[in-house]
């Protein structure tokens, strides 16, 4: 009997440990905690699909690790951004639109809201009446995206405080990374989230149209009750799924060492599972898509798996047990292309031509955020470039490795377009507008924010490779990731790490690329050869025998100083390589040889992507008409085609 009891106990323990292992939020070889856990959220949520609302109870345990007593706590209520007088709407309307959304047809039924009905602090009573909306960034009295509560007594350093909050989230029709579309729901930024005590003060910005989020690491235990025919996916791993017997079910999720929690639900979701074998064990890939997107399933899985492999090899391991990938339905573009911890949304469609790498472009980018936003949790309100920009750079590197540098976005109908060029063109549209160091939410406009945060950073880092080398920069990013994962590094931390790994003082570069708005533009101003004995009346020029003096002048047109390489080619096959520090406005190179110059090219590998104008980077002595003829032929065809189309109407 006793033996049986022991056996039963062992079996129970074994089953329990297997179940616990299966429910671990980490990859098999990872053990937490990985971060300094400041917050612990427990949320019990009820989703009502007809009204697109969630009523929930949130219990937040805040560990005061700030080293000082805290008596005031600010919270984000992001969904209140989708109200007519909110700062978010004001900024989005000012700039014309937001991502794919036009506010022209914005209706009251599209408004979103977070309503807190009860705010209690354990041991201090109901403080609902103490809640006060604040607008630390612009003083907008109608913005209700941040509220703060002053406690009756401070929370001492090292102590915990427990908040119990009852709230209702009303979702808008998909906008700005959250909301519903038909039966689909993406629940992002849906619960009251405490600000970050950072650098000796609370950092809790209002929700701005230009920027994203910033939060502390911790644990999340979230239960969602919803109709039982719904398929649900979320941050972390699913730990329970209980049928309530009344047509609903309650699904529980658990996540550790993350700083946000998002979930999605739709009865029409199709679940596709796969795995990735990483350096710290197997990771589950869970794709939520639709039958009509069947063509996209394999590209999604392949892209996630290949991206994970590149990141694992180059920057560091993905330590979580799962990555959930959401393929939003048609018409829900605003929900696409977004990142939350261990949870990303992509973008696809019923038909995407072969050769257009839209799925890879979006999916890789969002997966990259798992590193530069999810684990290296920078302040996106203030330094969006540290997430979006570094991520855009790694996106260029990963997509280049998939499809080649010149065709990583598109190789279709005879035309090619590479991601590095797309980032560069984005940057050049606003090259002299905003410096990177400026708080991102204060950038001039939506398009300028994109050009600077994404394009300029990626372009700046690609150009940096020309100075320190591609491998050194990769090593620097690896060091930066490993050193600052699960923390909140600053831009100084990033620059310091690159300086350290490269063994160089790159202040001259950071001063221009990070803190300045100088434009970089080099040109070949002159390249010609003349006989040395030009004064000889009897001179008969003969190839290989006549001596020439070749003059090459390189000119720095822009104010951005950058060392460049130049290649000078002669008609006898000789090649001269020149290195110019670019400090002066121009430099002259003179050659005397029995050959004439053929061509001069600055940066022949197109590595200095910050250069504003590639067209003037080279000069040839012979005419180059092939490209001109091609452009002319295509232009002529388009004119002819337009002409015959219009004449059809006449």
């Amino acid at each position, binding site marked *: 009997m006793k033996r049986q009891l022991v056996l039963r106990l062992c079996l129970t323990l074994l089953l329990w440990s297997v179940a616990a292992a299966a429910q671990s939020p980490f990859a098999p070889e990872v053990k937490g905690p990985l971060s300094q856990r400041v917050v612990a959220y427990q949320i019990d949520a009820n989703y009502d699909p007809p009204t697109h609302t969630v009523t929930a109870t949130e219990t937040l345990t805040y560990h005061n690790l700030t080293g000082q007593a805290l008596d005031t706590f600010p919270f984000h209520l992001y969904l209140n951004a989708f109200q007519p007088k909110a700062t978010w709407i004001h900024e989005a309307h000012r700039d014309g639109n937001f991502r794919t959304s036009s506010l022209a047809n914005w209706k009251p039924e599209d408004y979103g809201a977070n309503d807190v009905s009860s705010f209690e602090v354990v041991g201090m009573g109901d403080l609902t009446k103490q809640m006060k909306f604040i607008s630390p960034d612009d003083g907008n009295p109608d913005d209700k995206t941040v509220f703060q509560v002053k406690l009756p007594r401070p929370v001492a350093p090292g102590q915990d405080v427990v908040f119990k909050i009852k709230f209702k989230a009303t979702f808008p029709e998909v906008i700005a990374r959250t909301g519903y579309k*038909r039966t689909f729901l993406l629940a992002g930024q849906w619960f009251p989230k405490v600000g970050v005590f950072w650098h000796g003060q609370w950092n809790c910005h209002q929700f701005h149209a230009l920027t994203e989020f910033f939060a502390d690491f911790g644990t999340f235990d979230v239960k969602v009750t919803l109709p039982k025919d719904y398929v649900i996916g979320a941050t972390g791993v699913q730990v329970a799924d209980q049928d309530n017997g009344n047509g609903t079910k309650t699904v529980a999720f658990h996540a550790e060492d993350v700083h946000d929690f998002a979930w999605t639900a739709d009865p*029409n979701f199709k679940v596709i599972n796969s795995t990735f074998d990483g350096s710290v064990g197997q990771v589950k890939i869970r794709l939520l898509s*639709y*039958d*009509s*997107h069947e063509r996209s399933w394999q590209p999604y899985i392949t892209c996630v798996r290949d991206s994970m492999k590149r990141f694992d090899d180059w920057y560091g391991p993905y330590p979580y047990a799962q990555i959930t990938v959401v393929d939003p*339905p*048609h*018409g829900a573009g605003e929900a696409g292309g977004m990142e939350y911890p261990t949870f990303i949304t992509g973008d696809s469609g*019923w038909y995407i031509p072969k050769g257009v790498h839209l799925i890879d472009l979006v999916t890789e980018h969002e997966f990259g955020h798992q590193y530069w936003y999810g684990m290296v949790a920078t302040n996106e309100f203030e330094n969006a470039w540290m997430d979006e920009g570094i991520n855009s750079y790694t996106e260029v590197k990963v997509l280049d490795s998939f499809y080649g540098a*010149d065709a990583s976005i*598109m190789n279709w*109908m*005879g*035309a*090619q*377009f*590479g991601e590095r*060029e*797309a980032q*560069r*063109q984005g940057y*050049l*549209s606003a090259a002299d507008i905003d410096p990177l160091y400026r708080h991102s939410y204060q950038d001039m406009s939506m398009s300028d924010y994109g050009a600077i945060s994404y394009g300029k950073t990626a372009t700046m880092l690609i150009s940096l490779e020309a100075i320190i080398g591609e491998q050194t920069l990769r090593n620097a990013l690896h060091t930066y990731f490993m050193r600052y994962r699960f923390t909140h590094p600053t831009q100084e931390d990033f620059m310091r790490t690159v300086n350290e790994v490269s063994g160089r003082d790159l202040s001259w570069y950071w001063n221009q690329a990070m803190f300045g708005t100088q434009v970089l533009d080099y040109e070949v101003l002159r390249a010609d050869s003349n006989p040395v004995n030009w004064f000889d009346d009897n001179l008969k020029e003969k190839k290989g025998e006549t001596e020439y003096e070749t003059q090459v002048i390189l000119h720095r047109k822009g104010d951005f100083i950058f060392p460049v390489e130049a290649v000078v080619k002669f008609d006898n096959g000789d090649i001269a390589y020149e290195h110019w520090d670019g400090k002066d406005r121009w430099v002259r190179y003179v050659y005397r040889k029995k050959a004439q110059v053929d061509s001069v*090219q600055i940066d*022949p590998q197109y590595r200095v992507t910050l250069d*504003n*104008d*590639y*067209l*003037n*980077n*080279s*000069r*040839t*002595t012979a*005419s*180059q*008409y*092939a*490209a*001109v003829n*091609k*452009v002319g*032929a295509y*232009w*002529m*065809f*388009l*004119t*002819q*085609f*337009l*002409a*015959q189309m*219009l*004449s*059809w*109407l*006449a």
Partner: protein
Amino acid sequence: MADDQKGPVAAGFALLWRRQSVLWWVFVVNALCGALGAGPATIRTARALSHSLAGQKLTNGFDMGIFIELMRVPSVDLMRYSTSSYLFAFLFVLFMVLVTGGILETYRQDRRLDTGDFFAASGAFFWRFVRLMLLSIIPFAIVGMIYQGLSKQADHIGDRAIADQVGIFLSLAAFIIFLLLALWVRLWFDIAHVRAVARNERGMWRNLWASWRITWHDSRHLFRIYFCISLVAWVTLVIGLVIWAHVPPTALPLSFFLLELIVFAQLMTRLWLLASATTWYQRHAEMASVEAVIVEVVETTPPPVQDLPPADPGPELPPAEA
């Protein structure tokens, strides 16, 4: 097989083939307009690339980055030169309005007109066809509005449907309806053009009304002709572009030839439509109108009156009794 035994589509093509000089001239003018329209942009490109190695990215493929550079860099600013393309496209439209009279007269007579006759016919109908062109704005605008309405409805339904395909197919259906309606309007106005030339009609409102009745009356037959020929145009366009996309990027002469072939095919099908419309009109509408005139004459002329025989006086009656 004699032309009168062929269907209007085949007979129209035979007529187009016999009078192919018209097609070649139209193509030459179109190419000239294309070349002149592209001229300023090409010159500007030459200034930027004729001594630059950056163009290699366009030669060995077609790098969109360099092309965007050509449009973005202020010293080149290629998009500014698209105006000349619009201008020369418009001039080609005017040219087509001008020569449509000559083309239709050539097809109607099925003989090579000398230059004088061709342009005399062109000039004679120019203003009438300008009026027709302006009048065609009305039905084309109505068709456009119908398309907008259908498209909006398709979006509305598609937005509420779970499957992507619903919206896509509805939008496609709306576009096909738009295309067919536009084709019908084109057919109607082509018949108006043909009729105006055949009857030397001066009143364009009257002409349009008569053409509407003709087109409506025989719409099934006529529309089939137009649909078949238009199908050839659409298919050749798609096939041409697919082949062109597979041409090696450095084979510019072949690429240029294919693009010109595509334009040529489009112009050819347009003139084929006109030739077929002329053939059909001559066979049906003209015959019908001749028959109508005969019937009218028959119905309105009283039958010849025969001389009546002299009346029989009959027997004399006896005198009445007093």
